[in-house]
Every structure is written in C-alpha cells, then in structure tokens.
C-alpha cells in the first residue's frame, strides 16, 4: 500500500496535468487569450441582407481582427437585419466608417470588413453605422450575369438584322 504522501503526490500530478490540458484547450485550441477580458464597445450596423453571417464572426479592419459580431436580429419596422458589433476599445474609428459583409476565400466564412472614414469624431458605444454594403448573394450575381448576357445577345441579334 502506498503511503499518504505518495498518494497525494500522484493525485497532485494528476490534477496539475488535467488542469494543464484544460488550459491548453482554452488557450491554444480555442484562443481564449484574445478578446475575452478586453474592454469592448458596441456599435450597430443595418444591412439589407447579411447572407451567411453568424454571431461571433470576426470584424476586420485591413485584415486585422478588431472585434466580433455579438448579436444579429431582424428589425420588423424597416425589414433590415441589425447586426451588433463588439469592438475592442483599444481601436477607435471615425464616425463615418462603413461596414461591408465579405467572404474569406471562395467558400469561406463571412465576416464584416470595416473601412475607416474621414470624420474627426470617433464612434461611440451605441452608434449606428450609416454606410453599409450587404453580403453578395451568389444567385443574384449569377442572375445579373445571365441577364446582362441575354441583353448583349439581344443587341447583337438586332445588329445583324440591320
């Protein structure tokens, strides 16, 4: 039988490596270190169509993640999607900044790209972004393409008739 001291040592080692594994999962696998304890402020943006944007999608400026989407809901008065962005308070942006919904890669996840404006006053918590650009919907894009092709073809047909 083991002595009490040995037993304590082994259980201590077990708890330490167990906690170490949890820490590894939180920091290295889930990347808890960024954007958790940091102060943030909330701004809102309205979009006609958010495509496949999800809560916790990144908000990027010049490709750098500066915040995350914290909430998405539907405004039944204006029939627009209202997206709440939670931005790191280390970063401040002009009041007339604009938001776009972009896609990383061809089939990648959608994220919000902010472009800084030129106003001297900065965005405060609770502000709403005025200029937004909706997500690109592939079906609409194909529809437009086909429509313009058809129009082109029609023009050509007319020309040959002449």
């Amino acid at each position, binding site marked *: 039988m083991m002595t009490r001291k040995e037993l304590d040592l082994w259980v201590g080692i077990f708890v330490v490596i*167990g906690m*170490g594994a949890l820490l590894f999962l*939180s920091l290295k696998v*889930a990347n808890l270190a960024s954007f958790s304890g940091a102060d943030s402020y909330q701004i809102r943006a309205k979009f006609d169509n958010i495509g496949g944007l999800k809560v916790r999608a990144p908000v990027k400026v010049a490709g750098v993640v500066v915040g995350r989407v914290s909430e998405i809901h539907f405004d039944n008065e204006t029939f627009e999607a209202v997206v709440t962005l939670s931005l790191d308070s280390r970063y401040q942006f002009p009041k007339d900044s604009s938001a776009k919904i972009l896609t990383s890669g061809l089939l990648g996840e959608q994220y919000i790209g902010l472009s800084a404006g030129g106003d001297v006053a900065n965005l405060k918590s609770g502000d709403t972004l005025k200029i937004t650009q909706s997500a690109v919907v592939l079906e609409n894009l194909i529809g437009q393409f086909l429509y313009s092709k058809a129009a082109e073809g029609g023009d050509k047909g007319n020309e040959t008739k002449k």
Partner: protein
Amino acid sequence: MGRIAELLRALGTRVINHWVWRLGFATRFLLLTLKHSGPSFRRFYLTVREIYFAGVLSLIIILVSGLFVGMVLGLQGYDTLARYGSSEALGVLVSLSLVRELGPVVAALLFASRAGSAITAEIGLMKATEQLDAMEMMAVDPIARVIAPRFWGGVLSMPLLAALFSAMGVFGGYLVGVRLIGVDEGSFWSQMQAAVDFREDIVNGVIKSFVFGVAITWIAVFEGYDAPPTAEGVSRATTRTVVISSLAVLALDFVLTAMMFRGL
C-alpha cells in the same frame, strides 16, 4: 385467458421489481450519498485516495487512446478534406470532433470500463465479505465512509480525464497532420483557433464530461451496494455497471448535444 393474465403478471412484476423499484432505490441512494458527503470533503484524504484509484490509474489508458484517436482522426480527416482542397481545415475537424464529442464520450466509456467496474467490484466484495455490516456495527456510516468518497473521486476525475483525452487527441492530430503528412502548421492552429469557441465548445465539453462522471459513478456505486452478496452477484453487478453506464453515457450525450448545440 389464464395464460395471458399470467404472462402479463410476470411482465408487470419484472418491470416493477427490476426497473421501477430499483430506479427509486437508486435515486434515494444518490440523495443519501449527497447528504452524507460532508466527511468526504472535511476529511479530504478519503476522496484523494479515490481520485488516485479512479483518476490516476486511468491515466495510461486515457492518454494512449486519446493519442491514437487523434492520430486516426488526422489520417481519415486529411483523406476526406484533401478531396475538397481544404486540408488546412484538418485542425478544425480534429479539435471540434474531440472537444465536442469524442473527448467526453470516449473518455467516459473508457472510464466506465476501467474505473466504474472497479468501484462496483470493490463495493460489492466489501458487502459480500460483510465489511459494510462490520462498519455499521462500529457506528461508522458505510455511505459516508465508503460510498461518498468513491462517488466524489469519480465525479472530480472525469472532467480532467476528458480534457486530457481531448488535449492528447489534438496533439495526435497535430503529429499526423503536420509532422507526418505536412499540412501547414500555421493554418492548422489558426483555423482551429478561429473555429473553436471557448464557451460553446470547451465549456460545453466540460459540462458533458461532468454529467457523465456523475452518471457513471452513481451507477457504479449503486450496483456495488445493491449487488447480491455472492461471487456471482458481484460479477453480474460489475457487468451491469459497464453495460448500463455505457448506454447511459450515449443516451445522455444525445440529450445534452441536442440541448447545447441545437438550442432545444
């Protein structure tokens, strides 16, 4: 007519005696264990000893299987992802499947067969050799002295074991994916970090493994305590522990997953 009535009566007796009655007894037994849990924390040495038997001794099987499960995920995942030209997403596949499902569930199944069966066999033998009765004769409450520390030892060990399983699995996936096959190391980790959420994935995984720990050790201590005091009785109880707790883990996993990830 008489035969059918006889059959129905036999069925009813079986259901009532084997299922309903035992379930009620098991619930009362759990409440009794919780009520008498004081000594296992006041004299924490009792629980530490059980953490050693349930947790430390399960380390080898958990670490080795975690590593192999992760390596297999790496191989299989790479094969499928490479067809779609997105082999960099291997980290996401390995880590999400481990943290959300495989870590808690497989660790719990291993824990049930490694530690759960040992708990049942030990308590069953203590009962068969009248050690529990002897304790009662000496005014020592067997539930407080024997059952509760084993229960808490198992409950506290399970989340740590599941976390170790997941961490080893991610490491195994890294070994095969990055070291062996040659997936880009930077995108392996960064895509993983972008996809795995702390609250949604890690915390839910820990909650799952905690629930599994409660279920397994509850079943194990109850089966041991309720075992007929014979050699055959103890061996049957041990088998039942492994079967029932494995089924309970899989069923609970479905319920918990439905609640956590589908928002039911």
